[in-house]
């Protein structure tokens, strides 16, 4: 009997020194769905993943993963999960094949079967040509693919991916997304953390936004966007002198107060009837002969969601990438 929720957590708390890494987090991820844990650096995403994968014990709270209690039966949990940590932790001094075989053997899959499984995954992830190459000679994208393949060796029920695309170029990121979408199609439950809003938007059924160890919002992306408000008319007049008149037009047409970003000459105002409001604005602009640099209907992005919920834009992506580089195994220095 498959549990309805592949991941269920109640009141997870974890303190490191003076800071609450997690300050009471509840999660319920239905089997076969994708949960995106979204938040800036230091929000508590990695701590949540470490607890749910048995690497750290919560100070308070409890959780079940794949139907087994983390505290009572961690070994049963480990047999049913796959974890791709933030830095691809595949072994740099082993070949791709050796890495997958070792993981299979440590999952106690018979050696012959583990070999067959390794070959199969190398093929699926388009790494057959790099089968016998040492991972230290892999590119970042190849390393990530192998890392993901390694998490799939034992056919996990629940997959944990901690910032799976941090440090990847856009092409490699797209490739990985497509792989993940296929996995979801095959029924695997995935919990992924990300600071890329686009990633959560594209992959996750439910997005859980966390900041300072607390869940500050949850829902699918359209629900989250609704929290910020619906469509907006966006107008950027060509000349700064026209800004007050532009604001007046938008507020009159849409009947709501406008948000003005003066340095960017950017005016936005929420609207209920997008296209006709836009038409009315265009007429007014023409009548008053205001030159326009940009005008359109704007869907709020998850960036806007984040700004509204936390009062600051998510940051820190750059440092994340830097750390990745620094933590390359020293073997690479040879």
């Amino acid at each position, binding site marked *: 009997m498959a549990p309805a929720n592949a991941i269920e957590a109640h009141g997870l708390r974890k303190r490191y020194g003076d800071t609450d890494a997690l300050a009471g987090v509840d999660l319920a991820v239905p089997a076969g769905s994708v949960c995106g844990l979204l938040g800036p650096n230091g929000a508590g995403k990695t701590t949540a993943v470490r607890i749910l994968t048995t690497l750290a014990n919560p100070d308070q709270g409890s959780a079940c993963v794949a139907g087994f209690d983390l505290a009572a039966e961690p070994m049963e949990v480990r047999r049913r999960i796959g974890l791709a940590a933030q830095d691809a932790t595949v072994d740099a001094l082993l070949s791709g094949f050796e890495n997958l075989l070792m993981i299979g053997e440590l999952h106690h*899959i018979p050696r012959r*079967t583990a070999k067959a499984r390794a070959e199969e995954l190398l093929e699926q992830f*388009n790494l057959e040509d790099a089968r016998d190459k040492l991972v230290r000679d892999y590119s970042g994208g190849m390393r990530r693919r192998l890392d993901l393949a390694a998490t799939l060796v034992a056919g996990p029920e629940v997959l944990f991916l901690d910032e799976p695309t941090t440090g990847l170029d856009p092409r490699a990121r797209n490739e990985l997304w*497509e792989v993940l979408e296929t996995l979801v199609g095959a029924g695997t439950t995935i919990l992924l953390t990300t600071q890329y809003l686009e990633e959560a938007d594209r992959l996750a059924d439910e997005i859980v936004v966390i900041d300072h160890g607390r869940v500050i919002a949850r829902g699918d992306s359209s629900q989250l966007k609704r929290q910020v408000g619906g469509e907006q008319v966006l107008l950027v007049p060509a000349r700064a002198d026209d800004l007050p008149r532009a604001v007046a037009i938008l507020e009159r047409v849409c009947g709501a107060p406008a948000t003005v970003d003066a340095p960017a000459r950017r005016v936005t105002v929420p609207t209920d009837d997008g296209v006709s409001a836009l038409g009315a604005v265009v007429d007014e602009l023409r009548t008053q002969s205001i030159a326009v640099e940009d005008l359109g209907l704007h869907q709020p992005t998850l960036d806007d969601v984040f700004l509204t919920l936390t009062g600051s834009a998510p940051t820190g992506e750059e440092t994340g990438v830097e750390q990745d580089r620094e933590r390359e195994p*020293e073997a690479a220095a040879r």
Partner: protein
Amino acid sequence: MSVAAPTAPAPTEIGPAESRHGSALRDIWVVTRRGLLHMRRQPEVLADATFQPVMFVLLFAYVFGGAIAVPGGGNYKEFLMGGIFAQTIVFGGSFGVAIGIAADRKNGAMDRFRALPMARSAVLGGHASANLLKILLPMLLMSICGLIVGWRIRTGFLDALAGYGLLILFAFAMIWVGVLIGSMLSSPEAVQGVAFVAIFPLTFIASTFVPSATLPGVLRTFAEWNPVSSLADSLRVLFGNPHAGAGPGAPWSLQHPITYTLLCSAAIVAVCAPLAIRRFHRSIAD
């Protein structure tokens, strides 16, 4: 799109999780094999077990050897070998395992292992046994190198066997020192520093290269009770090579080098192993 779609269910039938059973010994062997592959692929890290002892044999046999007198007028090259064997085992036994554990912690391998359904003891056990196997390499290389420069085993087969057995036993003890160091320090670089600043000199303040009687005051007492000295002297006894010997006034450690070495090995294991295991588990938790 260059990544083929992973299909499900997996074409290779891997069976449900509850059907898979392992054993701690098999897990240890898998991690041991990984450790051995690591060594083979990082010859520069293996230098402490290959290049270094051979260099020391040649350096001391031909460069310093002429200036060092062996008590009783024995052949210095024969005196030297026991010392270099001891030094290499003390240093190599602790160093390699410390580096391996620190590196695994730093690059995330430890976390990957801990999220797998493997035996809890396998990571430590694998590192330890890989490094114990590694010790055989310098023992072989040094023996060959020694034979080339004129060293001979002048006793019987059993004595020789006992000599090599004693080396392996002491290496086992030193591995726990290495686990302790590797669990306390945060990076392989730090391990490197500590090993060269702390362990390496200890192998010199002993009868490794010169008879301890030639050392001044405190250093002499330290050398006489340093297990590196007693290990070196035990080997000289067991291999039938010249050694400083023990006059009537010599400390107990010099008069009974083999017993003292066995006692030291046991003491090191008794003290370091529990500390190391606790420290190791704390270093990887949370």
